[in-house]
């Protein structure tokens, strides 16, 4: 009743090809953006902004990057952490070598560097497929982390190998890194970057590039026969995915934790992001966000729920229970909807179109 296309006529091709063809969707999206931009910074406490929203957005960006590679192009990759590390360390080196450069430019350049590294490590995908490729990307993961740990040039010869974000302003006095940065400035900066990149990703996957990826994913032999070049397509997937992951890693290091060592991007990080896209939904932009929300927010909620409900439970018990609930939920979700939260969302929308009528 509420969610129908009745009465919405498109009079141009552009209107027909819009990302949100149904007006209600567009309104919802605008409302969500308004909430994200206006409501959250106004009512959110520092704790919410810094330890819940910012990591959620950064993870969502990384998940988006991995989804492009694994969900759309079908190349299973476990090197996400390594590419994030490339982004983080590249940003650090660039901004310490060229302190005058604007942080936005630095982030973009770091993304490009990460993309180049990603392309390099994407070459094995031309020969290896499936789980074997995943384990091959682990070579990239371990090598990159080892490299950032080992060569002091990357962390400017500090005794401990930790890189620390110098204060940088996005314009004027609006600092987004460093101790002086206002949490709201940080949050809005991260939000803007993520929104823009998500929009770009949506455009990518709806266009020729995305379709080529999906063809390779579904049946790469057939795709090659109809003229899609596997080399270019796969390498482009690796490059763009690493671009996104690099920027996510840079924001992780500079805005979220402000001091990071290479071990923050270890194999556990890669697995975490893989879980996000599988739970959220492979091959779905929305899925990356939903999965990130699930993996970031749920543990925090589970950790704090007993306290909020008034129970005093020893911390190790809480953590172990949280682990168990988390694992059980994953299995449960997979049984109920193997295609992830995005699919659940799509089914919900389908049902909503009919509501309140039965059919």
């Amino acid at each position, binding site marked *: 009743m509420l969610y129908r296309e009745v009465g919405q006529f498109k009079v141009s091709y552009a209107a027909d090809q819009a990302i949100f063809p149904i007006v209600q969707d567009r309104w919802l999206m605008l409302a969500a953006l308004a909430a994200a931009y206006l409501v959250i910074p106004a009512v959110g406490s520092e704790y919410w902004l810094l330890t819940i929203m910012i990591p959620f957005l950064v993870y969502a960006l990384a998940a988006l990057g991995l989804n492009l590679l694994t969900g759309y192009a079908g190349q*299973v990759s476990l090197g996400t952490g390594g590419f994030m590390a490339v982004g983080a360390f590249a940003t650090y080196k660039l901004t310490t070598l060229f302190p005058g450069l604007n942080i936005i430019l630095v982030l973009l350049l770091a993304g490009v560097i990460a993309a180049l590294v990603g392309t390099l490590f994407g070459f*094995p995908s031309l*020969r*290896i*497929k*499936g*789980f*074997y490729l995943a*384990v*091959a990307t*682990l*070579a990239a993961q*371990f*090598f990159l982390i*080892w490299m950032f740990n*080992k*060569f002091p040039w990357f962390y400017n010869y500090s005794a401990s190998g930790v890189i620390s974000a110098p204060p940088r302003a996005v314009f004027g006095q609006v600092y987004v890194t460093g101790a002086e940065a206002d949490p709201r400035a940080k949050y809005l900066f991260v939000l803007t970057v993520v929104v823009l990149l998500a929009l770009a990703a949506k455009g990518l996957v709806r266009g020729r590039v995305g379709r080529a990826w999906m063809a390779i994913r579904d*049946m790469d*032999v*057939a795709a090659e*026969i109809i003229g899609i070049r596997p080399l270019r397509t796969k390498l482009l997937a690796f490059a763009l995915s690493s671009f996104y992951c690099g920027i996510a890693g840079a924001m992780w290091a500079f805005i979220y934790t402000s001091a990071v060592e290479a071990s923050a991007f270890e*194999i556990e990080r890669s*697995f975490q992001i893989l*879980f996000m896209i*599988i*739970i959220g939904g*492979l091959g779905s932009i929305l899925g990356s966000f939903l999965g990130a929300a699930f993996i970031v927010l749920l543990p925090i909620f589970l950790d704090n729920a007993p306290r909020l409900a008034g129970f005093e439970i020893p911390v*190790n*018990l809480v*953590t*172990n*229970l*949280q*682990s*168990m*609930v*988390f*694992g*059980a*939920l*994953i*299995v449960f979700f*997979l*049984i109920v909807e*193997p295609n992830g939260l995005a699919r659940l969302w799509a089914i919900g929308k389908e049902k909503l179109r009919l509501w309140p009528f039965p059919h």
Partner: protein
Amino acid sequence: MDALAAIFLTPLANMWSNPEFLLEVVIGGLLAGVMYSLVALGFVLIYKASGVFNFAQGTMVLFAALTFVGLLERGVPIWGAFVIATAVMVLLAVAIERLMLRPLVNQEQIILFMATIGLAFLLDGFGQLVWGSDVHPLDIGIPKAPLIIGGVLINEFDLVAAAVAGSLVAALALFFQHTAVGRALRAVADDHQAAQSVGIPLRSIWVIVWSVAGVVGLVAGIMWGSKLGVQFSISLVALKALPVLILGGFTSVPGAIIGGLIVGVGEKVAEVFWGPAFGGAIEDWFAYALALVFLLFRPHGLFGERIIERV
């Protein structure tokens, strides 16, 4: 120039000048590799028979070891503890089949993989809940003294581990080749639906396979637990076993052993002779790089099944 010399000349010179040391490193590597194979075996069994890449294998090894050592600490004699721990792993296999595999039958590989991730979290939390997070020393009488044979150092413990792994592999090989259950397992590994249509009860097969993997995990857990003490870090051994799997192929039991040997030797030799050129501690990624190189020539591992793709 220095760097080139360090990579191409110095290691070979070192090896040549001290052949006993090279032998020592190679033997140490072979034995370390066997320990990795023990863990890899569990992966292979489950992948072979149910097509599932069991992310939770490392956690299962830890859980089995925790159960075993927990029983020992409560005064149960070794063989009793082993039997009870085996029973626990069988129960776990039954639970996994009933609650996880059955509802997800015929789903894609990646979904099942994801489900095993959930299982890993579950077992992790459960194990620490029941047995605590402390480190439990485990000593079942395996001799640990270093042996020096002809100037070459060999660790007695590793020899025992190698013997255990060898007998385990032999037993598994016999099981798969010469028993009806083994044949049924291989049929299921080939094609679930075809196996079902000839009357092989999928459910019982899965329970059997996961139980066997659980027992293999228990043995691996006991060996690694004796080496490191039973603690959380044992589940990280699974990461060491992954290159072994790639090299050997996901579906081959002898592949797991040979892969383990190659990875073990490769890792140690690289670390000792090439490590200093890179600043050391290259073991981690070297194993994967080695596996990657192998994969470029044989994309399905040394002994893995070649998957034929059809359009």
